[in-house]
């Protein structure tokens, strides 16, 4: 097997929200084809990392670099990060009443196509693919003409995030607590969606509190976040150990 290609490289990163420095000297490298899980107690900086990657305006990078596909990610505006193939699955997906799911998704796909100098997606191809993937995510057809996340339950919102991911076909998916608030059936559906995206050319970062989702996804690497940096990395067995013992044995060290 040839040497693995790097997709994402974070070096010596400091990031703050407001006046508070949250991420402290973080280093992380993700290769094509890998799934990394990030676990850790509340307030350890997991969501801030997701915000830093996506370019949330509240999150200020004070030190370090992020390279994505060898591009300096920090120089790209939010929408171009997406068009380059980075997807953020929101912990709390936003409701936009009055903007229909299908109109929104089509605009997103066409924005990406335009960025990559491709033609607009054809209306029939788009609808066909959308219906097929909505089926896979257990999303009723009638939802597609409704407002984005408008009146959805917690589980429906998370499945809708995965539907958007499947339609946009990102190279790197950053899923911020996609499993929180899911019942067992939704958890299976969401894992199925995530697994269908995995391949040699795609990678994902799965941020989670629980081992449950990882049982279905089987990450290549598990990292433990504490105080804004990685304090331990391991394989899937580390997640099981955390499930049994909690975080204290690591954070007290």
């Amino acid at each position, binding site marked *: 097997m040839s040497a693995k290609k790097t997709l994402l490289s974070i070096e010596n990163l400091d990031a703050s929200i407001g006046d508070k420095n949250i991420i402290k000297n973080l280093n992380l490298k993700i290769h094509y084809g890998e799934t990394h899980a990030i676990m850790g107690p509340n307030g350890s900086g997991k969501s801030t990392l997701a915000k830093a990657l996506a*370019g949330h305006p509240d999150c200020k990078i004070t030190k370090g670099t992020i390279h994505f596909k060898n591009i300096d990610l920090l120089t790209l505006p*939010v929408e171009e990060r*997406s068009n380059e193939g980075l997807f953020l699955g929101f912990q709390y997906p936003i409701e*936009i009443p*009055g903007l229909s799911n299908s109109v*929104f998704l089509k605009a997103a796909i066409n*924005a990406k196509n335009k960025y990559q100098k491709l033609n607009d997606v054809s209306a029939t191809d788009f609808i066909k693919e959308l219906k097929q993937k909505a089926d896979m995510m257990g999303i009723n057809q009638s939802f597609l003409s409704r407002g984005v996340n408008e009146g959805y339950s917690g589980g429906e919102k998370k499945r809708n995030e995965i539907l958007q991911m499947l339609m946009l076909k990102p190279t790197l998916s950053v899923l911020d607590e996609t499993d929180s608030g899911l019942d067992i059936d939704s958890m299976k559906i969401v894992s199925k969606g995530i697994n269908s995206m995995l391949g040699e050319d795609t990678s994902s970062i799965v941020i989670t509190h629980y081992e449950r989702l990882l049982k279905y996804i089987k990450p290549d690497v598990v990292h433990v976040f504490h105080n804004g940096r990685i304090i331990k990395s391991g394989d899937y067995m580390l997640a099981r150990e955390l499930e049994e013992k909690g975080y204290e044995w690591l954070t007290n060290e």
Partner: protein
Amino acid sequence: MANERIIKELMNPNDLDSFSSINQENAWLNGYNKESYLKLLERPIPSNKNEEWRYTKISEAVNQFFLKAKGNKTLPYEFNDDESFDDDIRIYFYNGTYFHQGELPAYITTLKISQDHPYFESKIYDGNKSNDCLINALNTVLLTDMLSIETKSNQKIDKMIRIINLSHKDSALCPRISVNLAKNSSIKIFEHHQSSESSVLNSNIDIQLEENSTLDYFRLIEKQTQSHDLSSQKINIGENSRVNLFCLDSGADTSRSNIDVELDGDNSAININALFTPSEALHSGNQLKINHNAKGTKSSLDFRGILDDSSAGVFFGKVKVHKNSSQTTANMSNQNLLLSDYAKISTKPILEIYNDDVECSHSATSGNLDDEKIFYIKSRGIDEESAKKFLVQSFAAKIINKITHANMRETFNNHLLKSLKIN
């Protein structure tokens, strides 16, 4: 008073003769014009200390009204062929006259001063008696023709009645409409103020519904340039009857709409859904007075303002539930989106309740576009400008989507997008 002086300086009584000379054969109407004018002289034009007119520069509009009235000239109108593709009935108001192509159905009459005066007189009398506002008084000064729409009992009319006000440059126009719905009847009216330049439009509509009737009423006011748009809508609703009113107002130098609703019959209802979208330095003023005078009456007011540049919007809504109006439902909401740091909104929803057995609510919110929503949309690859457009559209969609009439929904949506400069 200063404002009286404005009127007096612009129009001495000799001038009045000159503009009323167009109606020479109709002395009785001249009488009304004159009477209304003389009444105006006695009545102070409300200053900005008057609560109801605080944010509306009415003296400037009145000033312009008389200036334009003096300069009114007759211009021929040429029909545009692509104006009548659909099945709608079209009536135009131009140069103080209602006209149309082809024949009108029996329930619509354009009352011509020379032919119909006893009837016309009774309508003006009824209208003025029940409506003593400044806008009505101004309208009567220039009044010449009236459009009358009267249904028979059990008459259901599906065709849309389009009334198109065409203002030409430097004109003052005073359309007047009277609508009477007999028992068990229904109609649809679409009143369209086309965009104009340097004009004053003062429109008056007087609506009465007997029992079990329904009126769907659409009002579209396109963006007016260096113009003033004043209007008065007086609506009386009888037992089990309902009026659904949709408005889109894109603003004028002064745009002022007074809606007065009397819910007179038991279980009568009014729904008003409105968007006002002024931009540049334009203004849009909405005043509503709803009186619940009977049992089981319902009112629902949903007004959304989208204000850009240095525009200003006003919402003044007063819902009064009278003592004997039990089981009343009244909901009033005004939400505003400010797209610029220089845009202004004044909102005042008022409930006055004299009965315990009621369900009432009122709310008002004003804010900018939500940064978290903008970020969410951008995170899917859509640029900031498009994200903002999506959000503005989604804010307005809550009103647009309530229009069940498909053609009207499309018409209103197209005008909305034009007004918001979204293609």
